[in-house]
């Protein structure tokens, strides 16, 4: 997924990396991503955030899944900016971000943010700030689909 490019031409000459994946982020994908970093022996700490779809009960109806849509082109440009900001602020070795599109069932992972650095503090702080900026700035929308197939649009906190 790393090499799949976005649909836009790059800012500052580089193509923004794609961050969108169809459906849930699998635990095995996360494991592969962690495993790949064992060759980067300058890393001392990884920080990972995973967003998981909750089976919230709203007016007596349980959320079965969330269906995500995005303004992909704009989101990838924005994510590129966030990435550059975070790399210039923190002493990071790497950052990986994956966000689901389409349906993700309750209990499944829809967001995977993964930062690594020589020492823990940069990784932890960068991960948290990246998650906050993704939530606030990426043009992505979640549609909460109830067990009875009705839906409501998710509101972010």
């Amino acid at each position: 997924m790393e090499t799949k490019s976005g649909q836009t031409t790059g800012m500052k000459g580089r193509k923004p990396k794609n961050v969108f994946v169809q459906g849930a982020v699998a635990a095995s994908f996360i494991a592969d991503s962690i495993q790949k970093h064992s060759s980067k022996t300058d890393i001392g700490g990884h920080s990972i955030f995973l967003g998981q779809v909750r089976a919230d009960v709203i007016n007596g109806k349980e959320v079965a899944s969330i269906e995500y849509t995005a303004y992909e082109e704009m989101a990838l440009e924005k994510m590129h900016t966030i990435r550059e900001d975070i790399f210039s602020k923190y002493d990071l070795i790497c950052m990986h971000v994956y966000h689901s599109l389409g349906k993700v069932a309750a209990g499944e992972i829809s967001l995977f943010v993964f930062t690594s650095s020589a020492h823990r503090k940069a990784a932890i702080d960068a991960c948290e700030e990246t998650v906050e900026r993704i939530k606030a700035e990426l043009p992505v929308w979640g549609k909460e689909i109830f067990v009875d197939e009705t839906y409501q649009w998710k509101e972010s906190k």
Partner: protein
Amino acid sequence: MKTNIIVFGQLTDIIGNDKLVVNNAGDTNSLLEELKKGYPALEDSKFILAVDKKLVTENTLLNTNSTIALMPPFSGG
């Protein structure tokens, strides 16, 4: 002039589609006026506009190639 608009999230329920064409909108203010005339429910909706993938908060001139996006509050993650 025809302006092509892409529509996201709950606004697709109001517009009834994920795209839309508006005639003779020279700037974002007149575009919004036109839209709210056609879709009165937009008056009560929170949304922002992006012109060519940049959020706009002030009136902005449009040209024929402008890509307009109508976006409710983000709720990703």
